[in-house]
């Protein structure tokens, strides 16, 4: 990191944001931002790369900054003049939209955790001593790496612990603790205290936020569960699993006239519900993060929620399914249809919610 580098100042003595001509990988945007904010430019580079796979936002932001932020040596990325910059930015933005539009967007959610891990790794490395000058003692390098690894392990353990505690129902207590931790930081700001206290406070609040947003509830145990009721009376009102794979196979059940209701709740994992060939399926589905396929209806991403009312004209016996998945996938298939994880189906293979 270039701690000694100073951002150029204008005539009024105000710091100016400029692109760096010395610390650059493409156009010096991250180098300039790092110098302006006094942080390691690699954080901005990681953010740009991560956002590039989230619909191309990172590319667009980079291009905009490349076009409109001047370089500290006065050069222009697209030739002379501001008009050339604007035209170049528009052309590159159009290219980015074409390249990074759907379906490439699906890569985004998977790469965000990778970027997060990389970011945490960089922060830990810096916390353990930062960048090393040439000719450093290999023993010191190993010691710093070990410290960074141990800190990372402790943070990961704490993160997982809070996550589990929140998921098994301790969320209210943890939320109160987060508020208390925040108040303690405010008091510390006035009386003086260590800044590293921010890290444990974040480790407390971030996993809780994920659990709350995905509505994860891991009550119900972990592992693989398979249920194959033979009669209507054997169908449970609710099938629940904390973490793992849950399969509810209703193919052997002869549904009566009217509506039979059941519910499937999985905290983190995969749920498969096999429905009888003659059933008209109605559903109320909620998935925090993941994929949901209920016969001919599919949706994925975050906050997946839909209601499938079924055909009122159908005289077939009705099965109503309430499904709630925190993180993972739900699949409702008819008869012997293959599920997503065991062979992708084409649209023509999928039968509608209600038989004709």
């Amino acid at each position, binding site marked *: 990191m270039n701690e000694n580098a100073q951002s150029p100042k204008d005539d009024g003595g105000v710091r100016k944001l400029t692109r760096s001509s010395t610390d650059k990988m493409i156009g010096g945007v991250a180098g300039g931002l790092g110098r302006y904010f006094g942080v390691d430019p690699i954080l901005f580079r990681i953010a740009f790369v991560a956002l590039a796979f989230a619909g191309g936002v990172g590319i667009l932001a980079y291009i905009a900054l490349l076009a409109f932020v001047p370089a500290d040596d006065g050069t222009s990325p697209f030739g002379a003049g501001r008009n050339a910059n604007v035209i170049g930015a528009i052309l590159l933005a159009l290219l980015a939209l074409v390249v990074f539009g759907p379906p490439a967007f699906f890569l985004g959610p998977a790469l965000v955790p990778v970027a997060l891990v990389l970011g945490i790794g960089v922060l830990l490395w810096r916390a353990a001593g930062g960048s090393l000058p040439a000719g450093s003692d290999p023993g010191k390098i190993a010691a710093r790496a070990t410290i960074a690894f141990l800190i990372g392990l402790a943070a990961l353990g704490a993160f997982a612990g809070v996550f589990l505690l929140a998921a098994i129902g301790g969320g209210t207590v943890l939320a109160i603790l987060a*508020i208390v931790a925040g108040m303690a930081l405010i008091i510390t700001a006035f009386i003086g205290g260590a800044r590293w206290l921010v890290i444990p406070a974040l480790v407390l609040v971030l996993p809780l936020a994920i659990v709350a947003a995905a509505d994860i509830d891991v009550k119900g145990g972990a592992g693989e569960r398979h249920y194959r009721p033979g009669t209507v009376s054997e169908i449970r009102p609710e099938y629940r699993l904390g973490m793992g794979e849950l399969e509810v196979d209703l193919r052997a059940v002869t549904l009566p006239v009217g509506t039979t209701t059941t519910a499937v709740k999985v905290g983190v994992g995969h749920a498969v519900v096999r429905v009888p060939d003659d059933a008209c399926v109605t559903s109320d589905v909620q998935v*925090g993060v993941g994929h949901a396929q209920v016969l001919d209806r599919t949706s994925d991403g*975050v906050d997946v929620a839909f209601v499938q009312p079924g055909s009122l004209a159908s005289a077939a016996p009705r099965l109503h399914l309430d499904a709630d998945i925190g993180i993972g996938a739900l699949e409702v298939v008819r008869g012997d249809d293959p599920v997503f994880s065991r062979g992708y189906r084409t649209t023509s293979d999928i039968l509608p919610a209600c038989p004709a």
Partner: protein
Amino acid sequence: MNRAPDRLLLVAGLAISGLGVLLLLDRTGVIDLHFGYALPAILACVGAILLAAGLEGPRR
């Protein structure tokens, strides 16, 4: 002599308290938090702390 508060700790405290209040409201059933609301809130919280750290610089 009055001592200026540490802006990084102040911003972090306010951000984490705010997030904690949101989470408490969700856990007690007052609001139903989804990723659509939670993710921007988390990113804003972390972003505010990073900005405060960048603008404040090392403590003297």
